[in-house]
């Protein structure tokens, strides 16, 4: 992926890219409707739905009461009626009040009906750490990924935020779309990758990882905000003589093992950087999946860097110790690169 010429980089932030995608889909397809808290009158707490209610009216862009169980269930009913609902769970941390409708209904109905009923629902939600402590900083893609029947999409660049949201709405499968709070207000121009965001509609593939930086010593697999952190780390490490191949997963379910394994076969060293909890989640799945595919002899060294299975603490001094960011990623790469 090449860095676009400055001329082509629009002065938009990531939230605007999301709003643009939803806008274009709603415009072309009257069956797309949206439900959630503060998505209408305010345009979303991060602005990802700005302008939509004004354009499409309060019925299609519905500000709901704080009743997540009811409105996630509404999406299931709407999907059975032929609508394509987008449901916003403001922060992913709140999923504990309504996981029921997501995993027991939306995710299972296509299977439980023997394929007779589709559930084209997007569960749009914001994750990631921006300093709001234990109940407002989680990622939780590992939680959703464990439960079959849903695509789990986690973009990292402005281009993908727009294109993957469009593809998520377009998909007939239930999709969990996890934004990072720390990216939503960033300008496209501040990104090192995927800065160029076309005005018109486009779809970005929902199940392909991207090699953002080629390298030969270490395969670094990551997603969401830590993609940018990892690219920055890789640049520093290159100066130290460590060549890091940075892979942006983009999708958690399904995982693109073709891309991951091709890289690991080359480097023999696999580092997974994950802002979600480390245990029983994404990183274990990637390491195991790679070992299953290319064998333990090809995967010579593995390392995981993620939130070490503690809640996210309030104080910055504590938070910095457990949330992966550029400096800690550099340390992890150095540690892995030194093994032989």
């Amino acid at each position: 992926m090449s860095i676009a010429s400055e001329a082509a980089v629009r002065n938009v932030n990531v939230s605007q890219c999301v709003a643009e995608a939803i806008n274009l889909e709603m415009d072309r397809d009257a069956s797309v409707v949206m439900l959630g808290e503060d998505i209408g009158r305010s345009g979303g707490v991060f602005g990802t739905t700005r302008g939509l209610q004004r354009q499409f009216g309060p019925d299609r862009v519905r500000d709901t009461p704080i009743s997540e169980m009811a409105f996630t269930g509404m999406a299931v009913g709407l999907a059975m009626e032929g609508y394509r609902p987008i449901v916003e769970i403001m922060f992913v941390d709140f999923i504990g009040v309504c996981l029921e409708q997501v995993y027991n209904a939306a995710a299972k109905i296509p299977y439980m009906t023997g394929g007779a009923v589709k559930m084209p629902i997007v569960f749009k939600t914001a994750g990631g750490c921006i300093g709001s402590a234990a109940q407002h900083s989680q990622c939780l893609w590992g939680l959703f990924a464990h439960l079959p029947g849903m695509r789990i999409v986690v973009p990292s660049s402005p281009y993908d935020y727009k294109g993957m949201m469009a593809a998520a709405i377009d998909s007939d499968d239930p999709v969990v779309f996890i934004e990072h709070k720390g990216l939503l207000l960033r300008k496209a121009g501040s990104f090192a990758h995927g800065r160029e965001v076309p005005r018109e509609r486009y779809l970005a593939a929902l199940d392909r990882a991207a090699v953002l930086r080629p390298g030969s010593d270490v395969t670094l697999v990551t997603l969401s905000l830590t993609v940018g952190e990892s690219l920055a780390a890789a640049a520093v490490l290159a100066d130290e003589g460590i060549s890091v191949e940075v892979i942006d997963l983009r999708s958690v379910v399904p995982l693109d093992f073709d891309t991951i394994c091709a890289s690991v076969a080359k480097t023999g060293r696999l580092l997974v950087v994950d802002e979600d909890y480390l245990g029983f989640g994404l990183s274990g799945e990637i390491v195991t999946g790679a070992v299953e595919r290319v064998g333990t002899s090809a995967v010579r060294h593995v390392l995981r860097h993620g939130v070490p299975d503690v809640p996210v603490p309030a104080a910055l001094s504590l938070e910095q110790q457990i949330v992966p960011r550029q400096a800690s990623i550099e340390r992890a790469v150095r540690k892995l690169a030194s093994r032989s």
Partner: protein
Amino acid sequence: MSTLTLRDRYLAMVRMRRFEEACLAGVADREIHGEVHLGIGQEAIAAGLLGYLTDEDALVSTHRNHLHALAKGVPMYPLMAEIFEKRTGLCGGFGGHMHIFDLPRRFSTTGIVGSTLPVALGHAYAARLSGRASVAVGVTGDGGANAGGFHESLNIAGSLRLPLVVLIENNEWAISVPFEESTATATLAERAVSYRAWGKRVDGLDVLAVASAFGEAVDYARSGLGPAVLEATCYRFRGHYEGDPDMYRPAGDRDARRRDRDPLLITRESVVVEGGADPVSLAQEEQAIADEVDTVLAAVRRDLMPDGMQARDHVFTRGTAR
């Protein structure tokens, strides 16, 4: 009010009872290998729904859903076949008794208590979006009315004046917990005021009373006034599920209820005594229904189970998410 006669409703009740008995046979013979919840004793409620709903109206039911499916017009054969986990079932045997889906008839179910109303609310919202004058019926038991989704869904319906009809089948028990012990108020219908909803409690053994009240509730919701809550009282005749030892209810009371307050017998009596039905022709019709159900049961029993090789179908990743 619908044009159905008491006799029509009675015969529908007979059909429902015979259907449940066919399922019972499937449990006894271990053809149905999952758990099964039957609606025996609650037929007057389901039969009271007849005549008010079309395929444009939705009905979302619970773990105890067979009678509602029949009331919504789901054909008996694929319904029974799904309960019997056969490939000819509504869901090809993937769903089973707690997961009955008939999309063209806007009928669906869930095995999670309290989860029906949110889905029904979605159907009600679809009516609003599409400008259809249809209603969505969400069924819950007395126990399910204590789940949070009840409150959330009714409040949304009330504030948006959505055409949601909440049908509460109050059979006095949620498994082993009696209604009075789990509920702050004497009735559930009285909660309607919290949601600016129409509310009424009706004797769920009296099929005509149910029909008239349900007709009112549907009219109210359909006309755009907002949600309606109809509580129909009844009694769970059997264990919570087939196999439930049911030791927590006083046996004497249970036996007396089943003997003296069977809605089928009560309704038959009305059909004969008040309706002046000819007992002989009525018995013939009853027999014809029994024969119909027997025929379906026999055919379903001959059907094949789904092909095991398809067990990974119907998920986009086909069991290879990883």
